Protein backbone atom coordinates (compact mmCIF):
# COMPACT_ATOMS: atom_id res chain seq x y z
CA UNK A 1 0.00 0.00 0.00
CA UNK A 2 2.79 2.38 0.93
CA UNK A 3 4.68 1.59 -2.24
CA UNK A 4 1.55 2.19 -4.20
CA UNK A 5 1.11 5.66 -2.71
CA UNK A 6 4.74 6.48 -3.30
CA UNK A 7 4.43 5.46 -6.93
CA UNK A 8 1.41 7.64 -7.43
CA UNK A 9 3.21 10.53 -5.82
CA UNK A 10 6.17 10.09 -8.12
CA UNK A 11 3.95 9.82 -11.16
CA UNK A 12 2.03 12.93 -10.20
CA UNK A 13 5.27 14.74 -9.59
CA UNK A 14 6.66 13.74 -12.95
CA UNK A 15 3.59 14.72 -14.87
CA UNK A 16 3.50 18.10 -13.13
CA UNK A 17 7.08 18.75 -14.18
CA UNK A 18 6.54 17.77 -17.79
CA UNK A 19 3.33 19.82 -18.04
CA UNK A 20 5.30 22.80 -16.75
CA UNK A 21 7.96 22.43 -19.44
CA UNK A 22 5.31 22.04 -22.11
CA UNK A 23 3.58 25.20 -20.86
CA UNK A 24 6.79 27.17 -21.11
CA UNK A 25 7.39 25.87 -24.64
CA UNK A 26 3.86 26.84 -25.70
CA UNK A 27 4.19 30.13 -23.84
CA UNK A 28 7.30 30.87 -25.84
CA UNK A 29 5.48 30.23 -29.11
CA UNK A 30 2.63 32.51 -28.06
CA UNK A 31 5.12 35.14 -26.95
CA UNK A 32 6.86 35.11 -30.30
CA UNK A 33 3.58 35.53 -32.16
CA UNK A 34 1.90 38.12 -29.94
CA UNK A 35 4.61 39.92 -27.99
CA UNK A 36 8.01 39.81 -29.70
CA UNK A 37 7.12 42.46 -32.30
CA UNK A 38 7.29 44.98 -29.44
CA UNK A 39 9.16 43.25 -26.62
CA UNK A 40 11.78 41.68 -28.90
CA UNK A 41 12.66 38.16 -29.98
CA UNK A 42 14.85 37.96 -26.88
CA UNK A 43 12.39 39.77 -24.63
CA UNK A 44 14.69 42.73 -24.02
CA UNK A 45 12.21 45.39 -25.19
CA UNK A 46 13.84 45.94 -28.60
CA UNK A 47 11.19 44.48 -30.90
CA UNK A 48 10.88 45.42 -34.56
CA UNK A 49 8.13 47.92 -33.71
CA UNK A 50 9.92 49.54 -30.79
CA UNK A 51 11.91 52.11 -32.77
CA UNK A 52 8.94 54.32 -33.62
CA UNK A 53 7.09 53.91 -30.31
CA UNK A 54 6.74 56.69 -27.73
CA UNK A 55 6.95 54.34 -24.76
CA UNK A 56 9.61 51.66 -24.67
CA UNK A 57 8.15 48.15 -24.33
CA UNK A 58 9.08 46.58 -21.03
CA UNK A 59 12.36 44.70 -20.83
CA UNK A 60 11.24 41.25 -19.73
CA UNK A 61 14.80 40.19 -19.02
CA UNK A 62 15.15 42.83 -16.29
CA UNK A 63 15.15 40.49 -13.29
CA UNK A 64 14.89 43.16 -10.62
CA UNK A 65 11.86 44.84 -12.21
CA UNK A 66 10.16 41.59 -13.09
CA UNK A 67 10.39 40.03 -9.64
CA UNK A 68 8.58 43.08 -8.26
CA UNK A 69 5.47 41.90 -10.19
CA UNK A 70 3.42 38.93 -9.05
CA UNK A 71 2.13 36.38 -11.55
CA UNK A 72 -1.31 37.87 -10.99
CA UNK A 73 0.03 41.35 -11.92
CA UNK A 74 1.52 40.00 -15.12
CA UNK A 75 -1.62 38.07 -15.97
CA UNK A 76 -3.72 41.20 -15.51
CA UNK A 77 -1.40 43.37 -17.63
CA UNK A 78 -1.48 40.81 -20.43
CA UNK A 79 -5.17 40.02 -20.37
CA UNK A 80 -6.52 43.53 -19.91
CA UNK A 81 -3.67 45.63 -21.28
CA UNK A 82 -1.39 48.38 -19.97
CA UNK A 83 -4.30 50.64 -19.10
CA UNK A 84 -5.62 48.13 -16.56
CA UNK A 85 -2.38 48.35 -14.57
CA UNK A 86 -1.88 52.11 -14.97
CA UNK A 87 0.59 51.70 -17.79
CA UNK A 88 0.62 52.86 -21.39
CA UNK A 89 -2.20 51.97 -23.82
CA UNK A 90 0.59 50.96 -26.18
CA UNK A 91 0.58 47.70 -24.26
CA UNK A 92 -2.59 46.13 -25.72
CA UNK A 93 -5.09 43.76 -24.08
CA UNK A 94 -4.81 40.14 -25.21
CA UNK A 95 -8.09 38.79 -23.84
CA UNK A 96 -9.36 37.81 -27.29
CA UNK A 97 -6.09 36.47 -28.66
CA UNK A 98 -5.47 33.95 -25.91
CA UNK A 99 -7.57 32.09 -23.37
CA UNK A 100 -6.65 32.12 -19.68
CA UNK A 101 -4.62 28.90 -19.90
CA UNK A 102 -2.59 30.36 -22.73
CA UNK A 103 -1.98 33.58 -20.83
CA UNK A 104 -0.78 31.51 -17.87
CA UNK A 105 1.62 29.74 -20.25
CA UNK A 106 2.94 33.14 -21.37
CA UNK A 107 3.42 34.17 -17.73
CA UNK A 108 5.34 30.94 -17.15
CA UNK A 109 7.57 31.81 -20.10
CA UNK A 110 8.06 35.37 -18.79
CA UNK A 111 9.38 33.85 -15.56
CA UNK A 112 11.94 31.87 -17.55
CA UNK A 113 12.91 34.98 -19.53
CA UNK A 114 13.35 37.18 -16.53
CA UNK A 115 14.58 34.92 -13.84
CA UNK A 116 16.23 31.72 -14.90
CA UNK A 117 20.01 31.63 -14.90
CA UNK A 118 20.18 28.76 -17.31
CA UNK A 119 21.10 30.58 -20.51
Amino acid at each position, binding site marked *: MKIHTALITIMLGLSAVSAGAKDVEYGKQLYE*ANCSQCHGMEGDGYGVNAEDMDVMPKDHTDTEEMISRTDADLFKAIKFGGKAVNKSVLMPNWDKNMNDDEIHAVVAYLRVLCCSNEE
Partner: protein
Amino acid sequence: MKKMTPQHRHKLATGALMLAMASSVFSANATGIKEKIQQDCAGCHALHEEKKDDQLTQRINRKGPPLYYAASKYQKEWMQNWLQDPQRIRPGGDYFANHTVVTDEGDVIDDATLLKHPRLSAADAKSATAYLMTLDSKKELLDKQAYSAKKTSRRMAAMNFSKFKGCQACHRDEEDYGGVSGPELYTAHQRLRPEFIASYIRDPQQWEPRSLMPNRHLPDKEIHKLMDYFKILGE
Protein backbone atom coordinates in the same frame (compact mmCIF):
# COMPACT_ATOMS: atom_id res chain seq x y z
CA MET B 1 26.14 42.02 -35.89
CA LYS B 2 23.27 39.92 -37.11
CA LYS B 3 22.45 36.71 -35.41
CA MET B 4 20.50 34.21 -37.43
CA THR B 5 18.38 31.57 -35.88
CA PRO B 6 18.17 28.21 -37.66
CA GLN B 7 14.51 28.97 -38.20
CA HIS B 8 15.49 32.19 -39.92
CA ARG B 9 17.94 30.42 -42.19
CA HIS B 10 15.25 27.98 -43.18
CA LYS B 11 12.90 30.86 -43.94
CA LEU B 12 15.57 32.47 -46.13
CA ALA B 13 15.82 29.36 -48.22
CA THR B 14 12.05 29.14 -48.57
CA GLY B 15 11.98 32.81 -49.51
CA ALA B 16 14.45 32.30 -52.33
CA LEU B 17 12.43 29.38 -53.59
CA MET B 18 9.20 31.35 -53.54
CA LEU B 19 10.83 34.19 -55.45
CA ALA B 20 12.05 31.81 -58.11
CA MET B 21 8.55 30.43 -58.44
CA ALA B 22 7.05 33.87 -58.58
CA SER B 23 8.98 34.81 -61.71
CA SER B 24 6.64 32.73 -63.86
CA VAL B 25 3.36 34.35 -63.04
CA PHE B 26 0.53 32.22 -64.33
CA SER B 27 0.91 28.60 -65.39
CA ALA B 28 0.79 28.29 -69.14
CA ASN B 29 -0.75 24.85 -69.04
CA ALA B 30 -3.75 25.69 -66.87
CA THR B 31 -6.76 26.71 -68.91
CA GLY B 32 -9.22 28.91 -67.04
CA ILE B 33 -8.36 31.73 -64.64
CA LYS B 34 -9.78 29.70 -61.78
CA GLU B 35 -7.36 26.83 -62.43
CA LYS B 36 -4.46 29.24 -62.81
CA ILE B 37 -5.21 30.90 -59.50
CA GLN B 38 -5.63 27.54 -57.79
CA GLN B 39 -2.25 26.47 -59.17
CA ASP B 40 -0.20 29.61 -58.76
CA CYS B 41 -1.61 31.50 -55.78
CA ALA B 42 -2.44 28.71 -53.37
CA GLY B 43 1.20 28.37 -52.31
CA CYS B 44 0.92 31.62 -50.37
CA HIS B 45 -2.81 32.31 -50.09
CA ALA B 46 -5.57 30.17 -48.59
CA LEU B 47 -8.28 29.83 -51.22
CA HIS B 48 -10.53 27.68 -49.03
CA GLU B 49 -11.30 27.89 -45.38
CA GLU B 50 -9.16 25.34 -43.59
CA LYS B 51 -10.62 24.34 -40.27
CA LYS B 52 -7.38 23.05 -38.80
CA ASP B 53 -6.95 22.30 -35.14
CA ASP B 54 -3.70 24.15 -34.81
CA GLN B 55 -4.64 27.62 -35.99
CA LEU B 56 -1.61 29.21 -34.37
CA THR B 57 0.84 27.13 -36.41
CA GLN B 58 -1.22 27.84 -39.48
CA ARG B 59 -0.99 31.60 -38.84
CA ILE B 60 2.74 31.45 -38.16
CA ASN B 61 3.43 29.61 -41.39
CA ARG B 62 1.33 31.91 -43.53
CA LYS B 63 3.07 33.60 -46.46
CA GLY B 64 0.21 35.82 -47.60
CA PRO B 65 -3.28 36.78 -46.49
CA PRO B 66 -6.15 34.32 -47.03
CA LEU B 67 -8.14 35.07 -50.18
CA TYR B 68 -11.17 32.85 -49.76
CA TYR B 69 -13.04 35.88 -48.47
CA ALA B 70 -11.39 38.34 -50.88
CA ALA B 71 -14.73 39.75 -52.05
CA SER B 72 -15.79 40.45 -48.48
CA LYS B 73 -12.55 42.24 -47.73
CA TYR B 74 -11.07 44.08 -50.70
CA GLN B 75 -12.16 46.90 -52.98
CA LYS B 76 -12.34 45.61 -56.51
CA GLU B 77 -10.75 48.60 -58.20
CA TRP B 78 -7.85 48.65 -55.79
CA MET B 79 -7.17 44.95 -56.34
CA GLN B 80 -7.09 45.18 -60.09
CA ASN B 81 -4.60 48.06 -59.94
CA TRP B 82 -2.49 46.55 -57.18
CA LEU B 83 -2.00 43.26 -59.00
CA GLN B 84 -0.42 45.17 -61.87
CA ASP B 85 1.84 47.21 -59.62
CA PRO B 86 2.07 45.51 -56.23
CA GLN B 87 3.43 47.63 -53.37
CA ARG B 88 4.34 46.08 -50.04
CA ILE B 89 1.45 46.19 -47.56
CA ARG B 90 3.17 44.48 -44.63
CA PRO B 91 6.60 46.00 -43.97
CA GLY B 92 7.55 42.98 -41.89
CA GLY B 93 6.08 40.35 -44.21
CA ASP B 94 3.01 38.27 -43.46
CA TYR B 95 4.50 36.98 -40.23
CA PHE B 96 7.12 39.42 -38.95
CA ALA B 97 8.99 36.91 -36.77
CA ASN B 98 10.02 34.90 -39.84
CA HIS B 99 11.84 37.98 -41.12
CA THR B 100 13.23 39.34 -37.87
CA VAL B 101 16.92 39.40 -37.01
CA VAL B 102 18.31 40.37 -33.63
CA THR B 103 21.01 43.07 -33.86
CA ASP B 104 22.95 45.21 -31.39
CA GLU B 105 20.61 48.08 -32.23
CA GLY B 106 17.46 46.09 -31.63
CA ASP B 107 15.42 43.71 -33.77
CA VAL B 108 15.07 44.60 -37.44
CA ILE B 109 13.28 43.19 -40.45
CA ASP B 110 15.67 41.64 -42.93
CA ASP B 111 14.18 43.01 -46.16
CA ALA B 112 16.14 40.52 -48.25
CA THR B 113 13.96 37.71 -46.91
CA LEU B 114 10.64 39.35 -47.81
CA LEU B 115 8.73 37.84 -50.69
CA LYS B 116 7.96 39.97 -53.72
CA HIS B 117 4.47 39.72 -55.11
CA PRO B 118 4.36 38.81 -58.79
CA ARG B 119 3.24 41.55 -61.16
CA LEU B 120 0.33 40.70 -63.42
CA SER B 121 -0.45 41.97 -66.90
CA ALA B 122 -3.52 44.18 -67.24
CA ALA B 123 -5.50 41.34 -68.76
CA ASP B 124 -4.47 38.83 -66.08
CA ALA B 125 -5.15 41.35 -63.30
CA LYS B 126 -8.63 41.91 -64.67
CA SER B 127 -9.56 38.25 -64.88
CA ALA B 128 -7.89 37.40 -61.57
CA THR B 129 -9.81 40.20 -59.85
CA ALA B 130 -13.06 39.10 -61.44
CA TYR B 131 -12.51 35.60 -60.08
CA LEU B 132 -11.36 36.68 -56.62
CA MET B 133 -14.43 38.88 -56.35
CA THR B 134 -16.54 35.73 -56.44
CA LEU B 135 -14.91 34.43 -53.24
CA ASP B 136 -17.32 35.89 -50.74
CA SER B 137 -17.05 33.67 -47.67
CA LYS B 138 -17.72 35.35 -44.34
CA LYS B 139 -19.84 38.05 -45.94
CA GLU B 140 -22.32 37.58 -43.11
CA LEU B 141 -19.71 39.13 -40.80
CA LEU B 142 -19.62 42.40 -42.71
CA ASP B 143 -20.70 45.39 -40.68
CA LYS B 144 -24.33 46.31 -40.97
CA GLN B 145 -24.09 49.65 -39.20
CA ALA B 146 -24.58 52.70 -41.36
CA TYR B 147 -21.35 54.62 -41.65
CA SER B 148 -20.71 57.88 -43.39
CA ALA B 149 -17.48 59.82 -42.98
CA LYS B 150 -17.56 62.80 -40.64
CA LYS B 151 -15.64 66.04 -40.73
CA THR B 152 -12.34 65.40 -38.97
CA SER B 153 -9.22 67.30 -37.97
CA ARG B 154 -6.26 65.45 -39.42
CA ARG B 155 -4.08 66.31 -36.45
CA MET B 156 -6.57 65.05 -33.87
CA ALA B 157 -7.27 61.93 -35.90
CA ALA B 158 -3.55 61.19 -36.15
CA MET B 159 -3.14 61.62 -32.42
CA ASN B 160 -6.08 59.34 -31.77
CA PHE B 161 -4.51 56.68 -34.02
CA SER B 162 -1.08 56.87 -32.43
CA LYS B 163 -1.38 58.01 -28.83
CA PHE B 164 -4.91 57.24 -27.66
CA LYS B 165 -5.58 53.98 -29.48
CA GLY B 166 -1.99 52.84 -29.93
CA CYS B 167 -2.62 51.50 -33.45
CA GLN B 168 0.62 53.01 -34.74
CA ALA B 169 2.71 50.68 -32.59
CA CYS B 170 2.01 47.96 -35.16
CA HIS B 171 0.58 49.83 -38.18
CA ARG B 172 2.01 52.59 -40.30
CA ASP B 173 -0.10 55.61 -41.15
CA GLU B 174 2.59 57.02 -43.41
CA GLU B 175 5.35 55.47 -45.46
CA ASP B 176 8.35 54.71 -43.27
CA TYR B 177 6.77 55.61 -39.95
CA GLY B 178 5.12 53.34 -37.43
CA GLY B 179 5.14 49.64 -36.63
CA VAL B 180 6.13 47.01 -39.13
CA SER B 181 4.37 43.89 -37.86
CA GLY B 182 0.90 44.82 -39.08
CA PRO B 183 -0.35 45.87 -42.51
CA GLU B 184 0.10 49.55 -43.39
CA LEU B 185 -3.09 51.53 -43.11
CA TYR B 186 -2.36 54.57 -45.26
CA THR B 187 -3.98 52.75 -48.17
CA ALA B 188 -6.63 50.99 -46.07
CA HIS B 189 -9.38 53.28 -47.35
CA GLN B 190 -8.71 52.43 -50.99
CA ARG B 191 -7.88 48.80 -50.27
CA LEU B 192 -10.58 47.58 -47.92
CA ARG B 193 -14.35 47.67 -47.87
CA PRO B 194 -15.58 49.95 -45.07
CA GLU B 195 -17.92 47.20 -43.82
CA PHE B 196 -14.87 44.98 -43.50
CA ILE B 197 -12.74 47.55 -41.67
CA ALA B 198 -15.45 48.14 -39.09
CA SER B 199 -16.14 44.46 -38.61
CA TYR B 200 -12.46 43.53 -38.38
CA ILE B 201 -11.62 46.20 -35.80
CA ARG B 202 -14.66 45.17 -33.77
CA ASP B 203 -13.78 41.49 -33.73
CA PRO B 204 -10.59 40.42 -35.53
CA GLN B 205 -10.83 36.80 -34.35
CA GLN B 206 -14.14 36.30 -36.14
CA TRP B 207 -12.26 36.75 -39.40
CA GLU B 208 -9.13 34.90 -38.36
CA PRO B 209 -9.16 32.82 -35.17
CA ARG B 210 -5.44 33.50 -34.64
CA SER B 211 -5.35 37.07 -35.89
CA LEU B 212 -2.43 38.81 -34.21
CA MET B 213 -4.56 41.90 -33.75
CA PRO B 214 -6.01 42.60 -30.31
CA ASN B 215 -9.69 43.35 -29.90
CA ARG B 216 -9.59 46.77 -28.26
CA HIS B 217 -13.31 46.71 -27.43
CA LEU B 218 -13.99 49.97 -29.22
CA PRO B 219 -17.51 51.36 -29.43
CA ASP B 220 -18.85 52.11 -32.94
CA LYS B 221 -18.15 55.80 -32.60
CA GLU B 222 -14.46 55.14 -32.00
CA ILE B 223 -14.26 52.66 -34.85
CA HIS B 224 -15.79 55.24 -37.15
CA LYS B 225 -13.24 57.86 -36.04
CA LEU B 226 -10.46 55.55 -37.18
CA MET B 227 -12.21 55.00 -40.50
CA ASP B 228 -12.52 58.76 -40.95
CA TYR B 229 -8.76 58.94 -40.48
CA PHE B 230 -8.11 56.26 -43.10
CA LYS B 231 -10.27 58.25 -45.49
CA ILE B 232 -8.22 61.41 -44.92
CA LEU B 233 -5.04 59.41 -45.43
CA GLY B 234 -6.34 57.89 -48.64
CA GLU B 235 -7.49 61.09 -50.27
